[in-house]
């Protein structure tokens, strides 16, 4: 059963990919959806057995690579951490599969779409179940590939292609860091099995090794390199630019990949490697700073985005920042808890957004929506549940994880902890603002869209509604139900899968904070909602006045253009690299130097030399006679000066003589250059 969880999606994906034409639309849909639901049921069983009953399952399948010290086998490790991820991935994936059946109904390539979705699920399961770093890397690259295929699913759109390439390249930058991290792990631990590496991690702390000719702390370097991988995959500040652009794919893709599963791989990896990160406090410090900055950055940018999906994408980015800085504060269990909750309400938000877009005839701009409250009451309810959960409304799912993260940050009493607490609290304000802005602009305000679109607007069909309802139930109850299980004081749920040094444990301090401190997030989110109410509904004139003066317009443009990060990357990163690629490495080196000193230059030189030599044969007898006499003289002189000349006749030097002669000839003969 455990192996079937991983391989059933692969089977269905490959079957539909190969025989989709014969299965037809109904057949392939039935196959993929049913296999995903079976997988979800099995992973529930696995969750019960592994996480609740505490029986960790470790399957060694077959040897993969055996080369002296490097021994890697196909192994599957099911512990609590994996079980939680399994449930999240298979549930969200199954619901998205079901949702796509209706959402992509009119698409001619539905079998291919379903097959890619299943393929993505397989790679994600491979990522979370592997028992060594290489298998994690396989899944890691696989989800990148599947994300590429899905983002440019509508491959005839140039924008989709560009976004997919961007996602692939930005991810690959992170993957390079991860690959370096894996190599460093092998160099230090001589193994890349989780069990070996994590068991021996304490013995390698505070030891140095040479990296890039610098003597650095081993574990810090390893952890920072792994974190670079997580930055790419989890869209942290620096490599985040691909995530909002990945919204070019169909909406179910955004829900599955860019909200619930793929981007959580980075957080999962950090949690998985908690025994390493715990012994690298400097790396944890960096992680906290980057995570908190990401949360703040994405929240501020999300405030002024006008694309429905982009707002949610930036909110994903921001919530991932929360998870990452929570990891940096050594509260991996809280991070995983937030990951799980976030998967539910973000999938809900995205799928509801898909429902809105579907109803509005593929219009994504929120400024051209409005007034959908009466037309789409069901979708509105779903969206409201998702948004309230996202902003941490009390007793909804988001409340239980998000507030704990902020309390933990406050309870840390370090520079990074305080930094994370304040940026996180400010982000709560912005999160609340853009969530309610979205609700007001889309549903409550007077409509801005065309009459024909309003006429055709209809609520989600039943197949799209079922996943929304299930996710809404999850968004309301999951946090409350699993709170004590996953982050309760002294819970044994995580057993050995997460590791926290006792020094870094702050759950007790954060539990007994002042009530005033604990109310900060609630206060901020209430304030955000109020401001959204004023600016987007009650007093829109004020909104106009705020953004129409020079300062306001500057701030608006700065935020709307995502802090100009993309512009900076394009001007100072991408453009110089492209220029280098064309003018330096292609034009100057490949077709320049290498051609000149390589094949073309040599052949031209030989032609010139031979024509030079043949010009000696002038046909005049007296020239021949002169050359004959000269040659005879040189020969006689050479033989008579033998004791002297023999010194220079080592046959090792002939090659150099030939080269010298060629160079002299090319210097003497400028026409060789002109022929280029």
């Amino acid at each position, binding site marked *: 059963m455990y192996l079937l969880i991983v391989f059933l999606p692969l089977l269905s994906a490959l079957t539909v990919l190969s025989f989709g034409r014969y299965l037809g639309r109904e057949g392939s849909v039935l196959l993929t959806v049913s296999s995903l639901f079976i997988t979800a049921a099995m992973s529930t069983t696995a969750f019960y057995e592994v996480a609740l009953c505490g029986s960790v399952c470790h399957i060694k399948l077959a040897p993969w690579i055996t080369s002296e010290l490097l021994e890697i086998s196909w192994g599957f490790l099911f512990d609590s951490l994996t079980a939680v991820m399994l449930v999240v991935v298979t549930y969200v994936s199954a619901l998205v599969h079901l949702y796509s059946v209706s959402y992509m109904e009119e698409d001619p390539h539905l079998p291919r779409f379903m097959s890619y979705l299943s393929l993505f699920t397989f790679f994600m399961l491979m990522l979370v179940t592997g028992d060594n770093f290489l298998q994690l890397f396989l899944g890691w690259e696989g989800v990148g590939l599947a994300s590429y295929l899905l983002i440019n699913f509508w491959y005839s759109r140039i924008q989709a292609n560009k976004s997919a390439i961007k996602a692939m390249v930005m991810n690959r930058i992170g993957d390079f860091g991860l690959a370096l991290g894996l190599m460093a792990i092998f160099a230090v631990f001589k193994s890349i099995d989780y069990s070996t590496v994590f068991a021996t991690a304490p013995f390698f702390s505070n030891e140095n090794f040479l990296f890039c000719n610098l003597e650095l702390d081993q574990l810090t370097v390893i952890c920072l390199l792994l974190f670079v991988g997580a930055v790419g995959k989890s869209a942290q500040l620096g490599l985040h630019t691909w995530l909002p652009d990945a919204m070019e794919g169909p909406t179910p893709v955004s829900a599955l990949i860019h909200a619930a599963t793929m981007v959580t791989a980075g957080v999962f990896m950090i949690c998985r490697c908690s025994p390493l990160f715990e012994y690298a406090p400097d790396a944890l410090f960096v992680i906290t700073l980057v995570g908190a900055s990401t949360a703040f950055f994405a929240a501020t940018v999300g405030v002024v985005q006008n694309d429905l999906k982009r707002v949610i994408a930036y909110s994903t980015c921001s919530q991932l920042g929360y998870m990452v800085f929570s990891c940096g504060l050594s509260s991996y269990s809280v991070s995983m808890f937030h990951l799980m909750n976030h998967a539910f309400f973000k999938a809900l938000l995205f799928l509801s957004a898909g429902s809105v877009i579907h109803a509005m005839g593929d219009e994504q701009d929120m400024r051209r929506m409005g007034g959908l409250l009466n037309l789409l009451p069901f979708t509105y309810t779903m969206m409201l549940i998702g948004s309230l959960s996202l902003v941490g409304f009390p007793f909804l799912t988001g409340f239980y994880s998000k507030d704990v993260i902020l309390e933990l940050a406050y309870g840390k009493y370090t520079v990074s902890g305080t930094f994370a607490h304040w940026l996180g609290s400010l982000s709560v304000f912005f999160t609340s603002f853009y969530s309610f802005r979205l609700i007001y602009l889309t549903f409550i305000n007077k409509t801005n869209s065309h009459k024909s679109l309003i006429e055709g607007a209809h609520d989600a069909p039943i197949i799209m509604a079922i996943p929304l309802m299930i996710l809404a139930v999850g968004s309301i109850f999951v946090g409350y139900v699993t709170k004590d299980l996953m982050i309760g004081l002294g819970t044994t749920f995580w057993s050995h899968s997460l590791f926290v040094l006792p020094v870094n444990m702050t759950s007790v301090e954060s539990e007994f904070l002042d009530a005033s401190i604990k109310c900060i997030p609630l206060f901020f989110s209430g304030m955000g909602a109020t401001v959204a109410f004023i600016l987007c509904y009650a007093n829109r004139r004020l909104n106009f006045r705020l953004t129409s003066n020079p300062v306001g317009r500057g701030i608006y443009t700065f935020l709307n253009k995502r802090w100009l990060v993309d512009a900076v990357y394009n001007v100072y990163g991408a453009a110089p690299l492209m220029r280098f690629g064309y003018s330096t490495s292609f034009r100057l080196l490949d077709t320049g130097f290498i051609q000149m000193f390589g094949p073309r230059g040599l052949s031209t030189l030989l032609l010139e030399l031979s024509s030079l030599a043949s010009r000696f*044969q002038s*046909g*005049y*007898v*007296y020239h021949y*006679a*002169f050359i004959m*006499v000269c040659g005879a003289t040189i020969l006689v002189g050479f033989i008579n000066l033998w004791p002297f000349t023999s010194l220079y006749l080592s046959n090792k030097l002939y090659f150099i003589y030939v080269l010298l002669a060629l160079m002299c000839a090319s210097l003497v003969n400028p026409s060789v250059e002109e022929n280029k």
Partner: protein
Amino acid sequence: MITLSLMHYLAVSLVLFLIGICGIFLNRKNIILMLMSIEVMLLAINFSLIVFSVYLDDVMGQLFSLLVLTVAAAESAIGLAILVIYYRIRGTISIDQINLIRG
């Protein structure tokens, strides 16, 4: 009275030889002059062969010199024959115009 030593004889022979060589490649006009220069070179060699033969008291040098005389006669006969044929075809014996086979 100057006593003639070996060096003097050899000097004459060498100068004669060099004159022959110069005659070959300084002469741009007449192919007959070229043949004559070759004859001069052969005479210079003959001369030095005879000088060495006397100096070393060895008859072999004179034998060689006789042989070279016959070879020179044959060579000039053939050379003149080629020249005559060439003249019959081209109507000129100017060396400047003999460059049909340049590279």
